[in-house]
């Protein structure tokens, strides 16, 4: 009967083992692969903790999108190393980095060990507020994200846009407004094209489904948006589509749409429903779904823009 605790212990040791591998791997690429495996295992941990929403996000963003981001970053680092070989960090810098990382881990560990029992929790308050707002959502996670802490959710999306602006500003002055370099330099490769052509339509459908079902079941804007972003990246990797110019009006509108609609709705709530970010009771659910739809759009455009990187100096193709 007691097979689940054993499996949990195995899972926990696997997570720690893969984390150690990720840190100690000599090869950058191996380390990134370890990180992706670590993210997938962590998704299982969230499932075991009965948090399927977090598990979905971890698998899609923590493992998937971050994995692609790290692999492309690793490639660029490799190219940089070839250009300037004497750029390795010195011993003192390595020790300092290690000490800082150990300090952060130690502080986190102490904080967790020193938690009172039972730990302080906002969960009952959040659940009460989410259901009290008459949101009409079956999924309490989405209710908390969009009603109880809606301001935080909006700010998270703004952080995402700031990150894209940061990536863009790394590009050279001459390249400003141009398109980022394509993800793969080579010619289109037939199996990749087939994968993109078959997977992308299905993936887009599943992404929209995950966003839509997020109102009543595990899922939501971020998970659905991340899936749509992945499908756009797959089509770009297959060279079926190139990265757009970063001064394209539609791109910037799509990225800003989520937070902008969120903010306007929040301000309107101050006039119509009595307080900032309050939704009029009765029509709260359609309003939340509308905001989420625009946030999906923002996430689905911002994440691929992070991956393709700064605008390229080469003329557009």
């Amino acid at each position, binding site marked *: 009967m007691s097979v689940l605790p054993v499996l949990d212990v195995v899972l926990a040791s696997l997570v720690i083992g893969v984390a150690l591998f990720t840190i100690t791997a000599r090869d950058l690429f191996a380390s990134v692969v370890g990180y992706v495996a670590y993210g997938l295992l962590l998704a299982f941990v969230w499932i075991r903790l009965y948090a399927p929403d977090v598990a979905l996000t971890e698998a899609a963003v923590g493992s998937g999108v971050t994995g692609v981001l790290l692999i492309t970053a690793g490639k660029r680092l490799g190219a940089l190393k070839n250009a300037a070989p004497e750029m390795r960090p010195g011993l003192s810098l390595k020790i300092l980095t290690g000490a800082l990382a150990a300090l952060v881990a130690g502080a986190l560990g102490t904080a967790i060990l020193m938690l009172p029992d039972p730990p302080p929790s906002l969960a009952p308050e959040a659940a009460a507020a989410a259901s009290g707002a008459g949101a009409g959502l079956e999924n309490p996670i989405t209710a908390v994200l969009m009603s109880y802490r809606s301001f935080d959710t909006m700010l998270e999306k703004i952080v995402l846009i700031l990150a894209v602006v940061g990536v863009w500003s790394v590009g050279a002055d001459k390249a400003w407004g141009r398109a980022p370099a394509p993800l793969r330099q080579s010619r289109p*490769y037939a*199996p*990749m094209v*087939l*994968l993109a052509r*078959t*997977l992308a339509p*299905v993936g887009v459908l599943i992404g929209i489904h995950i966003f839509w079902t997020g109102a009543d079941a595990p899922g939501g804007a971020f998970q659905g948006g991340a899936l749509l972003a992945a499908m756009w990246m797959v089509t770009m990797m297959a060279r079926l589509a190139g990265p757009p110019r970063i001064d394209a009006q539609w791109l910037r509108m799509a990225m800003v749409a989520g937070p902008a609609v969120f903010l306007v709705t929040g301000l309107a709530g101050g006039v119509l429903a009595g307080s900032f970010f309050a939704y009029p009771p009765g029509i709260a659910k359609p309003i939340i779904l509308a905001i989420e739809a625009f946030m999906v759009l923002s996430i689905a455009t911002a994440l691929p823009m992070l991956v393709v990187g700064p605008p390229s100096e080469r003329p557009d193709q």
Partner: protein
Amino acid sequence: MTTLLQLFSVAAISAGAFFFFAGTVGLLRFPDSLTRLHALTKADNLGLGLVVLGLLPRAENTLSALKLLVIWALVLLSGASTAQLIGRALRRGRK
């Protein structure tokens, strides 16, 4: 009838688990990357297929049964494509 279905379910999931086990052994023991890739795709395609087949009688309704089949189809598609991509990368690396 239900006992038969139960038996079928257990048998299919066990067979699937065996394929995953065999695939993992192959992944660890085979000599080079191409044969390891072969072992891995067998585990993905057949192992997951059999597990899905065994889970079908246990599905709550037709919709979740269909979802299981779609998951298998997606894994088949991505498994076959990534095997091609890794295989090409290996061939290029050798030259």
